[in-house]
Structures are given as structure tokens and as C-alpha cells.
């Protein structure tokens, strides 16, 4: 009698869980599907616009300050600045902020560009650690400023850059990234189109395996390293497509720290980068939404598909873990700090689509997936698991995700005229299945355990193995 009661309870529980997962997966599949379809269509439309000269070159530009926060980047920093000097743009400045590096990041730059020491008063509009010294180089294509400050984290370094920036818009990039030659023109385009634009996200692409010459792709290959290769597919499906979709309704909640443009005045008005969070890039964008909506300011946060930044993705699992843990903790911090966005009519689609998506399918997804696995174990134990159906279902789901990855990947490759070899095409087809069946679960595990040791490491830059980017 008691056993029957228990079985009924378990059945009812499993039914409830079943309904929940059906809704959850319909939601996720629909989102992914819409993202890829909208993303691919947008990429084709842009290609057509370029072909028919609907997007034209302009000779006058919006002046921008490029801020490069650097911490122990002696290996890559000079090359990064050189690539910035080669950009096809007229009015900009480069500000490198050495955030108390333990290596010779600052000295490398001083030697490479023959910089001069200068006493410059800093207008502190957003909080940051005090500076130790400042250097400038004026004989380059554009002025380069180097400031060395006490260590305070990436957000603190970016705030120092904002305080030093001369121009009304600033761009933040990572010291290990390379901007494509025309990327500044492309990222500024939305500002020319709409006065209410307060931020523009660039398109961040893995550069592993890519050969760059004068800021242009000379040869595009998928990376030899399988982990990096799978991330290329993941970037196209999850980041490129999803961000194009969010852009359609002004719902972007993330602008990658590797490449984003911001209106300085608005960023200063909302207090600059938050120095107490690990995901300062997401935190700033969510804060901008909150600030503009609360103050009834018309605003747009855009995504520039053609503004391309090449960045190194981790090639070692250990580095990938470090990176994804940081991302997940940053996501948690931003979502919990701005929880008033949740279910708030005032924020419209930002609340009911973007925030909800990030909450359910990014922040909570590893725990929901873990719960799903545990439920399957329970169902198996009580002999209520339909194993053939489960396998069929997982297979359909894996194939579906793979097809989406491939659609996003090939759409991107074609629309920007990248030539890939036949073997790379085959590699992409084979690896996409592996990515959705293996890497996805590895990443889920990393995210589930992200908070282990969180208190101890929460303000750390986190070190990832750097390699010199192949520049010619």
C-alpha cells in the first residue's frame, strides 16, 4: 500500500518533470532556431547591401579612444598596439593601461614606441586605483598613451582608460586581440545611423588557425587544435546568431570585453565599470539598460556584425575552464545585482526575453541539466524510463543542434567571403556533432562547479596561456 503511494508520488513527480523539460526544451530550441534563422538572413542581407553599395565609405569619422587594459601581457602588447596603428581610420587615440603587471609590459611598450614620460593631470570621473606613471608617443599615426597603475583588476583598468580618454566614444579591447583593418569604421557605423546609440558590440571571432596580414584575413583555416575548433562552431551558433537576434529588439545584455564601443558620457553617468564583478562587460551593458530605462532616456545598444575582432580562444581544457568559470560567475553577479529587471514590464523585451533567456538557458541551465540527469537516474531505478525513446530524443536533439551550428558556421563563412578548404568543411561537419554531444557537457560541468573557490579568486584576472597571434 505504502509502496503504491510512493510509486504514485514518483510518477506524478516524473510527469511534472517531463512537462517542465518539454517546455524548457521547446523554449531553447525555438530560441536557437530563431537566432540562427534571423542571424543567417541578416548576414545575407548585409552581403547584398555591401554588393549594391548600400553601405558606403565615409571620409569623416566619429573620433574614438581605444582602451587596452593589460596585465602581464609583455608577449602580445606591442604587437597589439602595432595592429591598432594599422587600422583604416582617421581620428583615434590608443590608451594602454598597465594594471600593475609583474612582467615588463610597460617597459616593452616604452621601448617599442620610444615613449616619453609625462606629467598629466587625470580627470577622475569614474573610480580607479592611482596611477604610477604616464608615457606618451606622439610620432606615431595616432597618439599612444601608456599609464601604469596599481593593480585593481580589469574593470579598474578600463575605468582608468575612461578617465584618460579624450574623445566622446571609447572602445575597449583585450590586449591579446587583433582588430580587423576596417573594424573601427564598422563599429562606428551604428553611431552614424542613430544618435541614441550608447553602445555597440563587435563581432568576436577565434583567430586560432587564421593568418592575418595588415589586419586582413590572408588565409582562413579551422584550428588544428580540436578544442579550439569546436569553439569556432560554438561562437558562431551561440554568440554570433544569438546576438544578431537580440539586436533586433534592443535586447543585447552582453558586449564582449574583447571588442565594444561605448558612449563615454553615458558610461560615466552610470558609474563606469563595476570593479567588484568578474564579468565587467556584461555588468556594464545591463547597467546601461537599467540607467537609460530608469531615466526615460531613448537608447539603443547595437551589434555590428561586420566589426570583427580576432581573439585567441583557449587551446587547453584548463584554460577553457578558467575562462568559462569567470564568465559564469560574472553572469551570476550581473543577473543577481540587476534582478529587478526580472519580470518587469518597464524593461519590456529586455526583461521578458533577454533576461529570462540568460537566467534559464545560461545561468541555471547546468543545474537544470544536472537535475534532468538525476531524474533520469531515478526513473531508471524505478523502471519508468523509456530508454529507446530517451536515446531517440537525445539523438534528434544532438542532430538538431549540430545542424544549427553548421548553418550558422557556413552562413558566416560565405557571407564574409572566407574561403575554406574542403577538408575544413568536412572537419566542421564531423566536429559539430562532437561539440554538441561532448564539449557541451564538459562546459555544463565547468559551469556547475564555477562557484567552487569563488570567494578566493573573485577579483583575479585569471591567467590563460597566451601565444603570439600570426600577424604579417
Amino acid at each position, binding site marked *: 500500500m505504502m509502496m503504491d503511494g510512493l510509486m504514485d508520488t514518483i510518477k506524478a513527480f516524473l510527469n511534472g518533470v517531463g512537462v517542465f523539460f518539454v517546455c524548457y526544451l521547446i523554449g531553447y530550441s525555438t530560441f536557437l532556431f530563431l537566432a540562427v534563422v534571423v542571424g543567417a538572413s541578416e548576414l545575407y542581407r548585409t552581403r547584398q547591401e555591401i554588393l549594391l553599395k548600400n553601405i558606403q565609405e*565615409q571620409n569623416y569619422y566619429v573620433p574614438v579612444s581605444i582602451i587596452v587594459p593589460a596585465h602581464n601581457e609583455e608577449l602580445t602588447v606591442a604587437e597589439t598596439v602595432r595592429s591598432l596603428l594599422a587600422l583604416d581610420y582617421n581620428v583615434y587615440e590608443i590608451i594602454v593601461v598597465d594594471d600593475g603587471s609583474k612582467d615588463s609590459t610597460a617597459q616593452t611598450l616604452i621601448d617599442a614606441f620610444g615613449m616619453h614620460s609625462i*606629467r598629466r593631470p587625470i*580627470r577622475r570621473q569614474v573610480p580607479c586605483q592611482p596611477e604610477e606613471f604616464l608615457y606618451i608617443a606622439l610620432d606615431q599615426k595616432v597618439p599612444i598613451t601608456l599609464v601604469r597603475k596599481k593593480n585593481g583588476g580589469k574593470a579598474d583598468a578600463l575605468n582608468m582608460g575612461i578617465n584618460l580618454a579624450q574623445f566622446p566614444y571609447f572602445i575597449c579591447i583585450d590586449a591579446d586581440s587583433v582588430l580587423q583593418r576596417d573594424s573601427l569604421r564598422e563599429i562606428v557605423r551604428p553611431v552614424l545611423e542613430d544618435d541614441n546609440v550608447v553602445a555597440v558590440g563587435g563581432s568576436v571571432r577565434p583567430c586560432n588557425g587564421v593568418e592575418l596580414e595588415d589586419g586582413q584575413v590572408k588565409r582562413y583555416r579551422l584550428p588544428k587544435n580540436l578544442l579550439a575548433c569546436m569553439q569556432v562552431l560554438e561562437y558562431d551558433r551561440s554568440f554570433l546568431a544569438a546576438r544578431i537576434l537580440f539586436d533586433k529588439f534592443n535586447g543585447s545584455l552582453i558586449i564582449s570585453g574583447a571588442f565594444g564601443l561605448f558612449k563615454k558620457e553615458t558610461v560615466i553617468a552610470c558609474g563606469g565599470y563595476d570593479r567588484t564583478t568578474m564579468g565587467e562587460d556584461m555588468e556594464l551593458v545591463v547597467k546601461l539598460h537599467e540607467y537609460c530605462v530608469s531615466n526615460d532616456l531613448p537608447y539603443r545598444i547595437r551589434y555590428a556584425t561586420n566589426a570583427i575582432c580576432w581573439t585567441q580562444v583557449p587551446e587547453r581544457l584548463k584554460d577553457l575552464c578558467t575562462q568559462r568559470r569567470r564568465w559564469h560567475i560574472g553572469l551570476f553577479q550581473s543577473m543577481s545585482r540587476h534582478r529587478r529587471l526580472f519580470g518587469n514590464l518597464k524593461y519590456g523585451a529586455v526583461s521578458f526575453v533577454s533576461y529570462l533567456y540568460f537566467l534559464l538557458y545560461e545561468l541555471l541551465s547546468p543545474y537544470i541539466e544536472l537535475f534532468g540527469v538525476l531524474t533520469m537516474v531515478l526513473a531508471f531505478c524505478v523502471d519508468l524510463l523509456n530508454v529507446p525513446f530517451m536515446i531517440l530524443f537525445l539523438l*534528434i536533439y544532438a542532430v*538538431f543542434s549540430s*545542424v*544549427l551550428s553548421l548553418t550558422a558556421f557556413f552562413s558566416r563563412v560565405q557571407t564574409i567571403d572566407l574561403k575554406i578548404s574542403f577538408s575544413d568543411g568536412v572537419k566542421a561537419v564531423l566536429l559539430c556533432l562532437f561539440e554538441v554531444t561532448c564539449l557541451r557537457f564538459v562546459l555544463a560541468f565547468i559551469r556547475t562547479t564555477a562557484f567552487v573557490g569563488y570567494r578566493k579568486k573573485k577579483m583575479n584576472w585569471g591567467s590563460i596561456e597566451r601565444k603570439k597571434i600570426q600577424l604579417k
Partner: protein
Amino acid sequence: MQIETLIYAYLAICCSMIVFNCVCVFVFRRRSRVLHRHSSHLEEQIRSQMDRLAAGESVEESHQMFLQKKLRSTGNLLAFDETMERLLERCPEEAWRYLREISSVFTYLAMENHYRSAMKTVYFAYIVKRYRIIEGKSIHVIMELMRKLLQEPSLYCRESALQAIYSSGDCAAVVQALQTVDESGRFHHAKLLTDGLLNFRGEQRELADALWRSFDSFSVPMRVVILDYIRFSGGEKHEELLQLLADRRQDDEVRFSCIRYFGRYPYEPAYPLLLSFAERAEDNRWEYAAIAATALSAYPGEHTVEVLKGALNSSNWYIRFNAAKSLESFHLSYLALSDVMEGNDRYAREILQYRLDMKNAREEEKEAAPV
């Protein structure tokens, strides 16, 4: 089974997208080959017409008819573009002459307006501008088509149409186009407008006069565009702009633009006003003092130096910064600046020191540069 059905449906659509991708690869490659083939074919025909022109004959009627028929399609227009780019590089004079001779083809195309979508019409506008089809002449039909494009919501549609109109060199058409853009109420970046006006193919001074005559009919942002254009295109409106600057009823942005004008073109009667702006911010707007501090760099003299030194004590960063920059441009000795450098105002001292350091760094770099 409903969720499976849904996923199957998604899967089917995604597979069709992959098929679409493959078809696209094929179409793009084929299109590229066809484009080159058409372009080579066109080149032969155009070359023979260019030879006729060189021999003192005119372009054949049949060739013009051929173009009227062919260029209706965007694909052929792309081939024409590619061909002309090539010919302009190899034999520019002959190519420009040929383009002048066939301008009636474009009038016909504009009249028929076969380009159904705005995207294709924008391409037509680009061709009109790129190949100077209406340069020096205002062809009514083409201008009408361009004016229609000015109503489009896309910035690039409007910008292409404006570029084509600028290339006509027709002042009245440009004024009318700016009025259309202004009345539409759509955002059109001031930098694009000023930049575009500077590309005007006619007499810049005539355009400045025409714009000035209609100045009052424009909104404030468009007035600022016009003033910026006057500033960059050569000035010559000193008295008129001084009146605007002195008129307190004018919008602040308009007056800021006038201050910048007098910073570029020193005009003695404007000097007292600039000094007074630098000394005290007008109507609590610090921008007056900040912009005037920059403009005063064009008026060297003892009184200017005194006023700028006073501005160094301002609580506003921009006023201090601009005043220091102007003082730096006067190449004064340390002695002349000693009252600031040894004074009690740390902020004034620091900002001036910074500008002097910058000057030294520039000089050092100049000396170190290889001759």
C-alpha cells in the same frame, strides 16, 4: 510526440538552410563568373564606342538603346560598374568622355525606374554619383528619383541620394534636398551632412550663399550643419556670423558654431565677444568659455594671455584644458607663465605643466626624427 514533431520541423527548416547555403555557394560562384563574362563583353562594346569618340564621331544610337535595355537589370549594372572601373583606371580621359556621352541612358533608366526595391535604386544612385552622370547638370528625372530616395527611412538611401545631388553642382537642388531631410525629422548625422556638402561639385561659395539665404527656414541642428560647412568651406561670412553670435536669442549650439568659426578665421570685431565669453560663462553654460578659450588661440596678445591665465583657474576641466592648450600655442617663455607655474592654484599649474610637457615631447620627437 509533439515535441519531436516540432524538433523535426525545425530540423527540416535548418536542413533547408544548409541546402540554401550550398545553393548560395553555387549561385555566388556562378554570378561572379557571369559578371566577369558580361563585363568582358561590355568592355568590347564600350571600347569600340570610345574609339568612335576618339575619331571625332558620336556614340551610336544602337549602343545607347542596348545600354537602356541591358542596364535595367541590376546584374548588368554591376557588370557595367566593374567595366567602367577598369576602363577608368586604364584610360581615364576616354572613359570620362564616354560616360558624358551616354548620360541620356541614365535619364531613361530613371524615368522608367525599373529598380523595384530601394536597395537597387540606391545602387543606381551610387552609379549616378560615381560616374558623375549629372555633374554640372541638373537632370530633372534623375533628381526627382533622388528626392524620392530622401524620404526612405534608411540612412544609406538618403545619403546615396544626397551624394548624387551634391554631384550635380546645382545649389538650389542641394538646398531643397537639405530641406526635405530636415522636414522628415529623421536623424541624419551632422558629420555626414557637412562632409557631403564639402563634396559639392559646383561653386562652394555659391552654395554657401544659397544656404545662407534659406538659413532661417532650417531647424537648429541643420543650421549648425550649415555653419560648420561655411567654416570648413572657406568662411567669408564674418559680419553675418558676428550678428548671430551677438544675438542672445539664437540657440546655444548655433552660437557655439559661430565661436568656432571665429577661432578659424580671426576677425577683430569678434575679439571682445570672445574675450567676454572666456572670462565668464554665458547663461551658466560652461561651453561658451571652453570653446572661446580654444578660439582665442587665433588672437595672440597680452590681453588674450591674461584672460586665458584667468581661465586656467576655472573649476571646469574643459575650460582649463582649452585655455592651457591655447597658451601653449603662443610659445611663451617660462617667465611669462611663472605666475601660474609658481602660483597657488594646483589645478591650473598641473594642466599648464601637462601642455608644456606635451610641447617638449613633440619637439624632442621632431629632433629625434631622421631627416
